[in-house]
């Protein structure tokens, strides 16, 4: 349908090729032997909390480190712009003529952020910076617990909905001459609330996270967020990403269970992989949960092309 995977899959692995059988131990022992841990999650949460704390401290103590908020900021005097926010503004401005007044700082900030996240893998922003992602990760844990206890049912939707919302919010912005998305954007709302003080709008965040916990897992991040969708598009050809090696995989699917976007890990299922090696697609947030979860180290960070040369 999307012309992504027209190759025929490789034949399913023979039993003796499954890593733990090869080593002559049970799956449980093999898993315990390699140990999964939370290495990348710890690093990632440190970065996420660190960056957001830097925003807060910069304002609190008037440091010129990382000023502004996630809608637009200045790192050591160097501007960085939120892509979707700017995109909305650019569309309206191009129509009304305000575009000719935009500063060079804006242009630099807008381009820098695109180049940076292109190199870093697009949706890296989501799991490494976004404060709502952090909140939603905890919501997801609670959601999974409730599903396990059979208190609630799981509801999933089509992941391409994000592009409907992406286009929809841009059209809305143009029609209403207003940055509509910024009024409901949990990234900006949380960022501003943390830096400049909370407000009633946090009720919207509460409603959102409640919906995610009791109804649909990671609803906003998976199906709505146009910022994430923008980064998905940017990350299509990113050099930095997650790679998968078929030889080390035991098809236990532990990685899919922790993944925000499990459709990107389609090749871990038995008999689905078309190559010995796969790169995870651009919806991947490079969060590293699958890398932590994999008992056979079949998944790992990579700079595409680079490891092949080495």
């Amino acid at each position: 349908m999307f012309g992504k995977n027209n190759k025929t899959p490789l034949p399913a692995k023979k039993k003796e090729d499954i890593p733990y059988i090869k080593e002559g131990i049970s799956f449980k022992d093999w898993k315990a032997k390699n140990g999964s841990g939370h290495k990348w999650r710890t690093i990632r949460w440190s970065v996420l909390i660190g960056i957001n704390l830097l925003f807060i401290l910069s304002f609190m103590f008037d440091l010129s480190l990382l000023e502004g908020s996630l809608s637009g900021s200045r790192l050591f005097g160097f501007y960085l712009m939120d892509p979707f926010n700017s995109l909305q503004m650019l569309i309206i401005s191009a129509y009304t003529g305000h575009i000719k007044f935009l500063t060079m700082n804006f242009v630099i900030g807008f381009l820098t952020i695109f180049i940076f996240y292109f190199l870093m893998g697009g949706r890296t922003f989501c799991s490494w910076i976004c404060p709502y992602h952090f909140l939603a990760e905890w919501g997801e844990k609670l959601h999974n617990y409730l599903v396990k206890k059979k208190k609630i049912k799981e509801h999933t939707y089509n992941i391409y909905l994000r592009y409907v919302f992406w286009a929809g919010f841009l059209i809305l912005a143009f029609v209403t001459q207003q940055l509509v998305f910024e009024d409901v954007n949990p990234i900006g709302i949380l960022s501003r609330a943390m830096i400049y003080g909370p407000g009633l709008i946090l009720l919207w965040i509460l409603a959102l996270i409640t919906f995610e916990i009791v109804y649909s897992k990671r609803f906003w991040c998976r199906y709505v967020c146009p910022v994430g969708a923008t980064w998905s598009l940017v990350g299509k050809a990113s050099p930095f990403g997650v790679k998968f090696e078929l030889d080390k995989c035991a098809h236990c699917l532990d990685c899919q269970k922790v993944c925000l976007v499990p459709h990107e890990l389609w090749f871990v299922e038995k008999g689905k992989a078309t190559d010995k090696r796969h790169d995870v697609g651009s919806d991947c947030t490079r969060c590293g949960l699958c890398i932590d979860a994999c008992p056979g180290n079949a998944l790992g960070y990579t700079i595409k092309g680079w490891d092949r040369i080495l």
Partner: protein
Amino acid sequence: MGKNDYNLNRRQFLKSGAIAVGALAAVGAGVGYLQKVTAESRINQKFLRPPGAIDESTFIYGCIKCGLCVQICPVQAIKLAGIKDGLAYGTPYIDVREQACDFSCDSMQCVETCPTAVLNFVQFKDVGEKAIEEYDATHKRDENYNPFPVQILAMKSIVKMGVAKLKPESCLAFQGKGFKGSPRGSSFKGVNRSPYSGDLKATPVHDKVYDEKICDICVKECPIGDTAIVMADAGSGKMVPKVLDGCTGCGVCVMVCPTEEPSIIVEPVKS
């Protein structure tokens, strides 16, 4: 392909898509309704915007709500609007009664820092250039050559955030009364740099004690001076404050007004 497990098939997409479009339409209708009911305040500009702000209808979409102007303001006069202000959520405004824009900054940093130019220098360009020309005519290009402060001062004096308006019914001067003491009490947190103190730093308002026979604190503290507000004869020798054309709407007069409710207010300019 196995992707169908994650609802990548067409029927699901169309169904969810219809819901998404519905949701977007609902949001659009909501925004449209809010715009309609707030049309009056959009035109009359409910908020006092920071210096250099462009017309309100551009401001509302051009401002990306980053808050850089809030961070850069040395006297922290700028605040961000909350959700109760509806569509203006996240945009900067100045509450002059709590902390006025006292122009004690070096270079109107809020305007400099704004990346989307909703606060911009365009409207000050001519005045700034003229000020430099005049400076050039009277100064030599030696090591002391620095037209920048003169240029900024000239620009500050044509800022038009709003216009001050007196309320004679409560103004002390109109009642022929004087004022003794600190105008806003000892717990007031606002700061102000008096134009006549020669002090470069803004000082807390509560530190300053007045003893006026006829209350003229607003006139004394105005950072713009004689072109903005003066004590004028209101007939039979009674001296009262009078707002002139030079008023920038900075709101220092509102901040220092000693009456319970300010006897002078700033009305935002209409765009």
